[in-house]
């Protein structure tokens, strides 16, 4: 069962088609929803939560239909909206407790989980302050806390790092990584920032102008690009290249001691240093390809047709 299943999903708002025939299945543990502003990311999230009716097609979340089972979906989902969304004259702990009770927790358990969630996101010290007095970063964190308090199976984060300074952003990313690592909660993270998605997700759905531009498994992309290495070396590289070829690498050497190679999975970067030492050459610089998501995104943005491109290695 996929986390998100879309079948020719079409959503129209105010007479305008915002999502046009989305089809695809997402199975990743942390799914990134990527696209430029206005691509339809938030509309897709709102449709999954049952806020918008699909004009055609269907969407499923955790195997439940977004139209027919919206209450069951909301029971299983924690949602952190993009914009400010809270009750300003409530204290942090009261707000999170309120949201947990709405999610079905009995009052005592809701209070306990509210305290825990606030400590977990780092708002423990300010939990008795009114939310209206919080900074922007704190407001983002309290939205995350209320989304977590009832222990959802799927946590939907809409632009979680919006408006955060670098430190707060790093903290938010670290929290998301922690949640992912714990393994109990799947994540759907919407962002227009490649870096956020790259750091936190293992699968990505790229939207452009209301259509799916690409669905890709970032982990696989990362693995393949991890094996592509560029070297700058000092000394004669011929023997080194021959040796690497004999070990199963695809190699190409260039002027100035530059060598590009694709290593088989059995080899590790350490083997490069060992081979270089054996052949009397120095490795001055080594570069692993790490911009896989950017490649995927740029390829997807070039795409203008109606066909879904499953970006492959």
């Amino acid at each position: 069962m996929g986390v998100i299943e879309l079948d020719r999903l079409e959503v129209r708002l105010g007479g305008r088609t915002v999502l046009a025939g989305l089809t695809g299945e997402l199975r990743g543990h942390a799914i990134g929803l990527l696209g430029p502003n206005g691509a339809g990311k938030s509309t897709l999230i709102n449709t999954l939560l049952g806020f918008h009716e699909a004009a055609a097609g269907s969407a499923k979340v955790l195997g439940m239909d977004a139209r027919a089972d919206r209450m069951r979906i909301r029971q299983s989902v924690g949602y952190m909206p993009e914009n400010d969304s809270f009750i300003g004259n409530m204290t942090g702990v009261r707000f999170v407790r309120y949201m947990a009770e709405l999610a079905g927790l009995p009052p005592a358990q809701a209070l306990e989980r509210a305290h825990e969630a606030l400590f977990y996101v780092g708002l423990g010290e300010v939990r008795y302050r009114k939310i209206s007095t919080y900074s922007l970063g704190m407001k983002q964190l309290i939205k995350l806390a209320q989304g977590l308090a009832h222990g959802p199976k799927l946590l939907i984060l809409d632009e979680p790092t919006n408006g955060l300074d670098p430190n707060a952003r790093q903290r938010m990313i670290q929290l998301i990584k922690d949640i992912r690592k714990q393994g109990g909660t799947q994540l759907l993270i919407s962002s227009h920032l490649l870096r956020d998605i790259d750091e936190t997700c293992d699968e990505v759905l790229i939207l452009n102008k209301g259509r799916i531009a690409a669905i890709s498994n970032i982990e696989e992309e990362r693995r393949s690009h991890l094996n592509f290495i560029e070297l700058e070396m000092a000394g004669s590289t011929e023997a080194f290249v021959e040796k690497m070829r004999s070990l199963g690498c695809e190699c190409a050497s260039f002027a100035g001691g530059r060598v590009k190679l694709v290593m088989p999975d059995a080899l590790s970067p350490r083997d490069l240093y060992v081979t270089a030492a054996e052949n009397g050459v120095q490795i001055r610089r080594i570069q692993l390809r790490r911009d896989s998501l950017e490649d995927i995104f740029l390829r997807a943005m070039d795409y203008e047709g109606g066909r879904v491109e499953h970006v492959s290695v």
Partner: protein
Amino acid sequence: MSVFDHDYRPYEGRLTSLSSRPLVLARYAMNEAWSSKISVGLFVLGLLPCLVNLVIIYVADNPIARALIMRGSPSFSIGETFFLQVLETQCWFALVLAAWIAPRLVSFDLSDNALPILLSHPISRFSYLLGKFIALAVFLSYVTWIPCLTLFIYQCYASPVPWGMSHLRIALGLFAGAAAWILLLSMVGLAVSSWVKWRVIATGAMFAVVFVPAGVGGIASAVLRTKWGLLLNMPVVMTELWQRLLNAPSFMNSRMDLPTPAIVSVLIVACMLCVAVLNARIRAREVVRG
């Protein structure tokens, strides 16, 4: 999760039933309503007329007290007209309370854009409104039918002659009249508060919604020489309804009496308008046209 470990764990305990979730909203809304000192002040003020009426009933039913206090003045009886005045007084206090409290229940949610988060939980828009409605209705009950029926029960107890069973119609009328007013006030209060995000303006708008159409209706009646303009006059419409429910004598010229079906229709139309406003305003997302 644990406060000490600072790590995350899923919740595996029991969950409350879906049908009980509006009561969570109602409970938090009640707390919000009572959290204001002005609410408490208005509530106490709303009960003062009841104390005065309690003394009046005591004096009317106690010959010694009547002789001491009235000193030969013509005696008065406790009946439909007396309870109609009690109900009218309490219901207009209820309007003041609703104008103050209703915006507190809804405007905070709207001004901070809390609806997307609230409605992302397993509650529908109807449940959300039901929760707020329950809170408002309970609060207004404290100053309307509960004190009115308390006075009725006291009159049954204090009357020197058997009184209660022969005047049961008054008790039913008090409850039904107050319930109709609470329903209307709650609907109008929620609709106005959902439309006007600024609380002070919403409070003013509540009075405007009741009294501006009354003025327009009065002008229409005078210019067109018809009684139908009175249908826009909510105080007149409600007073006529209460009179009929309590079987009290009419205070209006018989030519100006409004037929009961017309009164009921006006109340239904007013409630339908409120439902339409709430349907348009209580959404997790605003629909962008274009």
